Each structure stands twice: as structure tokens, then as C-alpha cells.
């Protein structure tokens, strides 16, 4: 369903919005079901990844190996009929390995010239596997591309085609010999999604699917253009002041020096979330509202995306780390203590 150009939308025609939302839901459901053919369970992760796609953000997936993180991203790329590339980050990976390099090429006429060879980053969906294993220099090359949506090589900028989605993974177990992403760079990820070990039923399904003759494959269901339209729809979803205020107060509560910060923040947090966290909250809430068939984000949507949007943006202090407090625990207390209505 072709989305109407927002510039020509009649101002007060709710039917228009209803149509848009209905189409959005339909497309997302198709994506979900298509992905579901390959990926078992992890609905929250799938929704999270889709949210990152539709919100024009990037996602950080954290989970032990073998949980299907790579497969999820690949499947997502398949369902969207988008170019997919996978980058396995290793300690010896160089920036040029990501972004590409100029290569000396011999022309048929015998002349030699440099030709830019695009790196794996030039894709719509990039899986940066074990991003914390690469050196900070290599990480920065990717993160620059994530932020700028372009790559500069030898003073030439190469635009990355939209939609551009980077899904990075981290292994929470093997931290030795890794280069944890600095806070400033973690902040560029819209969501940090924790991939959990599947439950028993899901394992059964996984085994049945992956150890039989027929391995399911996903087919493209949504094109590139439709993804871009869907992104526009997400941007058009309004947020009421009270909901926005709630998101702001949650972000403010992550700061220990703030008056409204709960005990956990004051005690265990070193740095709170940046305003990007509030952006992530709102974008994620809008998507959830759309998926719920609503036309505006609610405080409940904000609450649902809080952990994904903020867990990687809150930096614990030594005391927090020593006591084994996680950012999720802090965020849980924040959600409990911060009321939806301002006093």
C-alpha cells in the first residue's frame, strides 16, 4: 500500500492515518511471520531488531554464541530483500576491511589507477559480529559510518544507501582480550537487545528445523521502498506532552545528581543516559504504539522500551559493578519509582 505523501495529507482525516497504521501493522506482521519461519522464539528480539530498522537506528545484540543472532540478522535481510553483509570482527581487523580501500587496478589499456573497492559496510543491513573483539580504531570506522551514514576514503565520501542498519553482536562471556565499546560509541546504538537462551519448547523447534532435511528459508516480503515508507509512518506518529514528559523524567532519573533520581541511581550509577536515550524511548514507543494499532505512543510503550533503549547508556560506578548490580536493575527501580504523572 503506497503511503500518501505527508505534505498532501488532509489535516484532519483520521481515515488516512488508520489506513497507514493498518498497512504498517500488516507489513510488520508479514515480516514477523516470515522471520518466524526461520527464527524460533525471540519475539522480543525480532521486534527489537525490526524497531531498530523502522526507527532508522542500529541495534546491539548481546548473547552467548549459538543463539541465532547472525541468523536473525541474515533472515531479516532476506525478508526485506535488502543487501546484507556480515563482518566478523577480530582483533586484527582493519578499518579498511570494513569500509573498503583503494586498490591499484590495471586497466585493459595497461594503465594503472586506484579504484575504490567497497567494503562490507556498503550494505543495507550489516552484521558486525563480536564487535568488541576489534580494535577501537576499527570500531570507530564502523561507528562513524553508523552515525554519518557515509564513508570517507581518501577525502572522498561515499554515501551509504538507506536503509542502513547495523546490528552488532557481543559475547558477554569472553571479555578477555576484547575491546569493550566506549560509552560514547555505545550511545549510537538505538537498542541493546539481550538474546536469551531459548526455552525447552523453542529448543525443540530449533532442533527440528535445523537438523532436518529441509531448512526453512525466508522470502522477501517487504521491499526497500516500503521500509522507507514505514520509517516515515513511524516519524509521523505523534506523542503527547505527558508521554514525552514521562520519557524525559525517566532519562533524568538515570542521572544520580538529579533530584528525582531513585536510590539505585544515586548509589550505583556513574553516568546517566544522554538525550539519545530519550529519542530511543520515543521512537521505540511510537513503533510499539503502531504495532498495537494505536495512533500515539503511551507511557506504557515508553516503559516497555526503557530497558532496550537505556541499558547500554547507563554507566555503573565501581560500587555498582562490585555489587553485581546491572543496569537493568537500576532501570527497573527507576520505572518503579518514577510516576507516569508528574507531581
Amino acid at each position, binding site marked *: 500500500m503506497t503511503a500518501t505523501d505527508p505534505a498532501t*495529507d488532509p489535516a484532519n482525516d483520521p481515515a488516512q492515518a488508520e489506513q497507514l497504521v493498518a498497512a504498517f501493522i500488516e507489513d510488520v506482521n508479514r515480516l514477523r511471520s516470515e522471520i518466524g519461519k526461520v527464527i524460533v522464539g525471540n519475539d522480543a528480539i525480532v521486534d527489537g531488531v525490526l524497531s531498530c530498522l523502522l526507527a532508522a537506528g542500529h541495534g546491539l545484540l548481546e548473547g552467548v554464541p549459538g543463539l541465532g543472532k547472525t541468523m536473525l540478522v541474515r533472515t531479516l535481510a532476506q525478508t526485506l530483500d535488502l543487501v546484507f553483509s556480515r563482518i566478523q570482527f577480530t582483533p586484527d581487523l582493519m578499518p579498511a576491511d570494513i569500509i573498503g580501500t583503494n586498490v591499484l587496478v590495471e586497466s585493459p589499456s595497461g594503465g594503472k589507477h586506484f579504484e575504490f573497492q567497497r567494503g562490507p559496510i556498503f550494505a543495507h543491513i550489516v552484521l558486525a559480529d563480536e564487535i568488541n573483539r576489534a580494535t577501537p580504531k576499527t570500531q570507530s570506522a564502523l561507528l562513524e559510518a553508523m552515525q554519518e551514514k557515509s564513508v570517507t576514503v581518501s577525502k572522498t565520501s561515499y554515501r551509504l544507501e538507506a536503509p542502513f542498519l547495523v546490528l552488532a553482536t557481543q559475547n558477554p562471556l569472553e571479555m578477555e582480550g576484547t575491546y569493550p565499546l566506549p560509552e560514547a560509541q555505545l550511545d549510537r546504538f538505538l537498542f541493546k537487545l539481550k538474546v536469551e537462551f531459548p526455552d525447552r519448547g523453542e529448543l525443540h523447534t530449533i532442533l527440528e528445523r535445523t537438523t532436518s532435511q529441509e531448512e526453512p528459508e525466508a522470502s522477501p516480503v517487504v521491499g526497500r521502498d516500503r521500509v522507507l515508507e514505514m520509517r516515515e509512518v513511524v516519524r509521523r506518529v505523534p506523542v503527547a506532552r505527558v508521554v514525552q514528559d514521562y520519557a524525559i523524567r525517566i532519562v533524568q532519573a538515570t542521572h544520580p545528581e538529579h533530584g528525582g533520581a531513585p536510590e539505585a541511581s544515586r548509589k550505583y550509577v556513574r553516568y546517566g543516559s544522554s538525550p539519545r536515550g530519550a529519542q530511543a524511548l520515543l521512537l521505540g514507543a511510537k513503533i510499539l504504539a503502531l504495532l498495537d494499532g494505536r495512533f500515539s*505512543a*503511551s507511557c506504557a510503550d515508553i516503559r516497555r522500551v526503557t530497558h532496550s533503549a537505556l541499558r547500554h547508556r547507563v554507566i555503573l560506578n565501581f560500587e555498582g559493578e562490585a555489587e553485581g548490580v546491572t543496569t537493568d536493575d537500576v532501570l527497573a527501580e527507576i520505572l518503579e519509582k518514577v510516576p507516569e504523572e508528574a507531581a
Partner: protein
Amino acid sequence: MLWEVWREALRTRVMAQSYPTTVLRALAGTRRRLRLQRALEAATTAGIVGLLAATATVYLSKAGALGSRGVWIGLTLAAALPALGALLAAARRLSDARVAKRIDRTHQLHDRLVTAVEFAALERATCFHAAQVRDAERCATRVVPSTAAPFRRPRDIGLLGLTLLCLVFVLLLKFPSTTVVAPKPPPLARLTIAPEDLEPHQALALELERQALEQDLPEVSELAKELNKLFEQIQKKELTRKELFAKLAELEKKYMDGLDGNFDDLLKKLKKMGGELQKEKLTKEAGNALKQADLDKAKKELEDLAKKVDRLKQEQKRRLARSLDRASRQKMEKDQLKRKLDQLNRQIRRLQRQLKQQKNNPAARRRLQRKQRQLQRLNRQQQQAAQQRRQLQRLNQQMKRAAQNLRNQLSPEAMKALQQAAQQMGRFANQRNKLRMMGKAQGQMVDLKELLRRLGKGGKGKQGKLKDFLARAKGLKPGQGKKGKGKKGLMLDPNGQGGTLIMPLPGPPGAGQDDPNGPPGDGIGDSSDPNLKGQATKLKARHKNLMVKGQESAGPTRSEVILGASEKGFATSHYRRVYREYTEIIEEVLKREEVPLGYKYYVKRYFQLIKPR
């Protein structure tokens, strides 16, 4: 702040006009319930404060630290606090967003209403805004205000109950009485009057009774008996001072009301009548009696005359008739009191007008009351004068009838008329005696009241006061000196030959004379200074004796009688007559004039002392 509240309310009202109806209805219903709940909560909280205030008020009131006014204020405040609290809480601002949020939360509407409330007022809304509002409108139909704002028991209800219990406890508390209970007044002491103070009054009362019986005055006799009974009760100490005053007032009211009569005018006319009767031999004795105001004798003479009528000769009858005719011409002037009455009435009217203008003028009020009492008295006198006038007229008529019958030789009728005249004379005598006796009794009651007043002020009785007076006259302190025997003092010869009048005089101070610093005596001294006469005057000049003869006349003069009383005693008939005359005059004067009571006592005491024995 009020301005801000009003402005916000106005803005909300304007915004609300853009809300969908279902949303408005949902908001309104929920808002009502929220306000009510707030009012309930606030009323409970304020009720706790009010109950505490009431408890404190009751406690302080019972402890005597708070007057009735304070109690009223405290209790009124306590009662008003819950209502005030409820009103204030209910009136507090309750925004649409807040109400909508409550509905969203309780109905799991995912902030549809609160978003719709905001979006509905947007000037530049997109289709998404409109869709959201429409979505909210659809969801609002399912809203149940009672679900959104259920009534719940106020949080402080437990505390309210506890405070109420405290109040009940304080109400039931019994405080020791802090009011000063006035000690029971001791029972009024029975009146005690010294016998020497009471005796004279008793003697007078007995004398009054005897005279009343003698003169056949039953009313006076009754009064005298009541007085005697009163004195007996005083002797037996059966009465208090207050009771005695009350009884005296009762007696006055019973017997003295209406006794303002004046007999003088009638007596004057009767004397004139007597003067006319004196001219005729047959009626001379009657005339003499009337001239001397001896009405009893006059009555007797007329009765005797009536008996003699049928034995009289023609000429005698004619002379008698003429005498009776002349005597019957006496008339009393009409209404001499009228002018006084008119004057009094004018004065009273003026005072009443004055009082109308100056309502708070106690002096004018008192004057008015005094004039009104005078008016009442004058009215009574006028009535009595009229009665006397009629009685005199009757006497005149009877005399005229007697005279006419004598001329017509109707002796029995003349006798009857004379007897009737005698009876009328007897009635005059009775009235006069009654007035006199009542006057005496009234005087005695006044004396008794004066005695009571003196005793009530802690003063001494009359005897005590007299002793003090005589002691002071001697230059001693009251009570100083013991009783000594007095000697006879100077005596004046009633024959006018330079004699001396012997009078018992108080004696010198006893121990005080030798020892001025000695203990005070217990009475009046009764001896005198032996050097009272002083040394005889030594006349160096030559003198010769001259005898002056006195003029012979009918009996001694009044002054002779008085002066001679001390020598010859108070038992002579002349003295008795003189005493009676003077007593009557003095009683009249004491009654009419404004003589201070203290002086009245001395005058009466004097007359008691010189009473014929």
C-alpha cells in the same frame, strides 16, 4: 494565585469545547467522583483536627480555663473545619489531563484519553492526531466513572475514630469542681436586743394596748397586741433582724395605710361650735368640752342634754334651740387641698416630660416617685377631709333638727336628734383617738426600726449611746470611770426666788479621778464634783431686800407647772394637762416635720422622762 486558577479554569473550559462528547462525559463523571473523594478525604482529615479542637475545648472548659464564649468559638470552629476542608479540597484544581490519565490507567486505554485531550485542542492537527482523538472517542464509551474513581474509605478514618473516642473520653471525664462554692451563709443570727433598750418600747406598747382597750379602739388594740407579741418574740430571740423588719412593714401596711388624716380642721370647727354652745347655760358644759377638744366629754354632755330635754321649760327649749341653731352653722371649707393637688399634678407632669427626654436621669426619677407618693398622700387626705366634711354636716343637721323639734315642742324627736348628735360626737372622738393612738404606734415602730439599724451597724443601743454621750460631755472616753454615786445638783425654786432645780446628774469618774491611767469603768459615774456650786459671789455692794408680790390668777402658768414639776413631782393634775397638750403638739410636729430620726429619739426620750406619774 486566584487569578492564575481562574485563568487556567477558563483555558480548560475553552479547550474542553473541542473534546468529543463521549470524552467530555467520561471526564465530567470521573471528575465529579474525584472531587467527592477528595472532599471526603479532606473532611476526614479536617474532622480529625476539628475533633482535636473540640476535645481541647471540652477539656479546658471542664478545667475551668475557658469561659462559655470560648467554648462556643471552639466548638463552632471544630464543627466548621470538616465542611471547610471538604469545600477547599473539592474546589482544588483538577486538570483534564489528570482526570484523563486516571481513566486511561484504570481502563487500560494506553493514554488514549489523555492524548486525545491534548490533541483535541491542537490548532494544526495531522490525520494521526485526528485518528487518535477518534480512537479515544470510541474507547470513551466504555469508560465507567465508578471504575475510574471508585469511592474508597478515607485513609484517616481510623484516626478519626480514635480522635472521636478521645473526645468521648474527655466528655465523660469528671473534673474536680474548680468553681468556688460559696460557703453556706451562716444561719441568720437571732436578733438580740438588750433588755434596757427593749423595755421602753415594751412599756409603750403595753400602755398603748391599755389605752386602746379603755377607749374602745379595737383596731389600735389589735395593733398594740401585735406589737406586744413582737416584743415577746424579740425577748425570746425568735426573730432575725430581717424578719423583724418584714413584720414591722407588714403591720404598717395592715394598719397604717390610709391614716394620713388631719383632724385639725374639724377640731377647729368643733371648737367654734363649742364657742357658740358655751354662750348658753344649758349647753355650756358641752361647749366647754368642745373648746377644750374633749370630745368624749362633749358626747357625754350632749347625751345628758338629750335626757333632760323633756324636763325643760318652754323658755329653756327656745334658748336651747337657738344655741343649737347657732352651733350648727359651722362648715368646713371645701377642698383646701385642691390647689396643692393641682400643683403636685403639674409638677408630676413636668417631671414625666423631663424623664421622657432624659431617660437616664435617676435624680429626676427619684423626684417623680417622691411627688407621686405625696400625691397619693394628699389624695387620701382629701378623701378624709371630704368624709369629715360630711360628718360635720350630719352633726349640723342633727343639731338643726333637734333645734327645730324643740321649737315645735317635739321633745322625743328633739331627744333623738340630740342623741344622734351625741353619737356623731362619739364617732368624732373615736376617730381622733384612733388617729392619735395609731400615730403613737407608728412612732414606736419607727423608733424600733431606728434601734435595729443602730444595732445592725454594730452600734450600741440607746442606753449605751446615752452613756457614751454623757461620758464625752464630761471629757472622758466612753466607758471610762466606774460608777459612783451622784449628788443632787442645783435646784431652781419654782416660786422664782433664786432657788435651784434639782436634777440627777452623772457622777464623776471613779478610779479615773485618782488614777487617770487606770482601767476604764463599766458605766456612767453618778457622783458629781463636790465643788459644783463654786464659791459664793462676794457682793461688796450694799443691797436692800425688796419683796415683790405675785399676781393672783386661776392656777399656775404653764411654765410654773413645768418648772414646779421637778419639785412637786410629775403627778399633779396641772402637770398632767400640760404634759398632754405638749405631747400632742410634739407628736404632730414629729409626724409632719422632717425631723431626723436621731433627734426624734431624744425628744421622745425626754418626754418619757418627764411623763406624769
